[in-house]
């Protein structure tokens, strides 16, 4: 084991390299670009023995990776934002054909307004396409979750592709010290790629992704549902093995100082680090607050979340995506559904959109509101926690009379 300084994109590349992928087809898009660039460098220098297929779009990038993996090799791609949106059509093909690709998604908002910056709106729009979704707190988790994702996605009882989501810039371009295990240890952990389902072989032909009538469609969707159901146990098993082998323990839902907490915040992604810092800070002031960090969003781990949130009177849920037209954002809806029989007061927060920093102050403000609600000194909460007061008037134009 050796410490390395890497940013989130570098950590993803390191994991993909150590998984010994043989085909790569990635299309560069900010803030994912350095993943595509570094992978092509590794292929050019011969450090990674793989074929790099230059494609003209993300739609093709995922199509190539999916078809390549069907021929019996581990394949890689990565994307962000508009690129992920363009992959949408193929994303369902990959998952429906049970091709277990692992794909880093560098979270960036969807236009319009044009943005380059962190926002979970891109990945949340894909939450029902049949992919596993993991959200990373820091750069170490980008590496660890990507390595684990191969084991989980490729498990014969799961066979479901996985998105490893990291916040654009806040993780993708943040340099952090991380621990990279030896190649031999990773080889032992992940193992070589083995085809476990449908495949493309001219010597033994089959037709993959053919037209399927009402007679069989439901059953094939059900097969995918069973894959998701199975995945929870597999994730737990893989996380345990990973902890034994590499000494780092990750949980599906991490309850951070939640045991005796009066109020708990549920959150995803890089903001969880900042939230832990705020929890520690407020605890020093005698305020009993805690964090439920959701590492696995698909499958949504409702049992694990129920355990952490059991008996909590006031719960805040922080969505880094707008969830337009919904009663709340996606994380809020899932949380409400998970604990629908609890007597908790669940408050929805939206913030950190389009790269707005989720700062210590923002999270402190949320915890203080939740504590006031708990004490009965406050009724309403500030749902759009970091929106400017002049939101409706930020642009003005001159018009001819």
């Amino acid at each position, binding site marked *: 084991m050796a410490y390395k300084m890497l940013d989130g994109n570098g950590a993803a590349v390191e994991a993909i390299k150590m998984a010994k992928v043989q085909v790569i087809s990635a299309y560069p898009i900010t803030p994912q670009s350095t993943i595509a660039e570094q992978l092509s460098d590794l292929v050019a220098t011969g450090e990674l023995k793989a074929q790099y297929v230059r494609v003209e779009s993300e739609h093709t990038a995922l199509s190539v990776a999916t078809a390549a993996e069907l021929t019996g090799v581990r394949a890689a791609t990565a994307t962000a934002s508009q690129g992920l949106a363009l992959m949408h059509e193929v994303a369902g093909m990959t998952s*429906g*054909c*049970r091709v277990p690709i692992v794909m880093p998604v560098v979270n960036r908002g969807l236009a319009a307004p044009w943005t380059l910056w962190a926002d979970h709106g891109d990945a949340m729009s894909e939450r029902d396409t049949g992919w596993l979704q993991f959200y990373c707190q820091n750069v170490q988790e980008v590496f660890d979750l990507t390595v684990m994702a191969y084991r989980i996605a490729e498990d014969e009882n799961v*066979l479901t592709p996985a998105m490893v989501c990291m916040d654009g810039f806040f993780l993708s371009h943040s340099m952090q010290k991380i621990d990279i295990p030896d190649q031999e240890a990773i080889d032992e952990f992940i193992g070589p790629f083995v085809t476990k*389902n*449908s495949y493309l072989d001219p010597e*033994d*032909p*089959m*037709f*993959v*992704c*053919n037209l*399927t009538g009402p007679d*069989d469609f439901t059953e*094939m969707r059900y*097969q*995918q549902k069973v*894959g998701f159901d199975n995945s929870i146990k597999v994730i737990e098993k893989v996380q345990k093995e990973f902890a034994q082998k590499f000494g780092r323990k990750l949980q599906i839902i991490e309850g951070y100082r939640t045991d005796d907490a009066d109020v708990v915040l549920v959150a995803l992604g890089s903001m969880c680090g900042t939230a832990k810092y705020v929890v520690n800070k407020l605890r020093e002031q005698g305020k009993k607050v805690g964090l439920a960090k959701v590492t696995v969003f698909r499958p949504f781990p409702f049992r694990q979340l129920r355990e952490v949130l059991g008996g909590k009177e006031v719960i805040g849920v922080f969505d880094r995506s707008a969830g337009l037209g919904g009663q709340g954002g996606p994380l809020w809806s899932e949380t409400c559904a998970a604990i629908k029989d609890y007597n908790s007061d669940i408050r929805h927060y939206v913030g950190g959109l389009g790269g707005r920093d989720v700062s210590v102050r923002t999270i402190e403000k949320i915890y203080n509101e939740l504590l006031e609600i708990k004490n009965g000194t406050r009724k309403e909460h500030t749902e759009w926690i970091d929106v400017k007061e002049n939101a409706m008037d930020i642009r003005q134009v001159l018009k001819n009379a």
Partner: protein
Amino acid sequence: MQEQQEKLTNKPRRCRVLGPVAYEYTAANTGSWRLERPDVDFSACIKCGTCEKYCPTNVITIKKDQKKCVEIDFNYCKGCGICANECPKKCIKMVPERSEG
């Protein structure tokens, strides 16, 4: 295609596959879809090869040295009628499949 299928079904090993996969090509013989078939009047045919060029399933072969110069593979001809439509001499007619039977 037919050969491949024979080879496969002869294999004894069967394993479960999840998701949409077709392994036995039951609808592979597209000739069975045909309701009308093209019928060539060879006395008017000038062997120009237009029908061969336009056939979307590539089942027409022109054999210029033979009297019945237009050879159609009825295993795969779907009876779409494009050849009849395109023929410059209008010497291809679409005739009901069943009356031939």
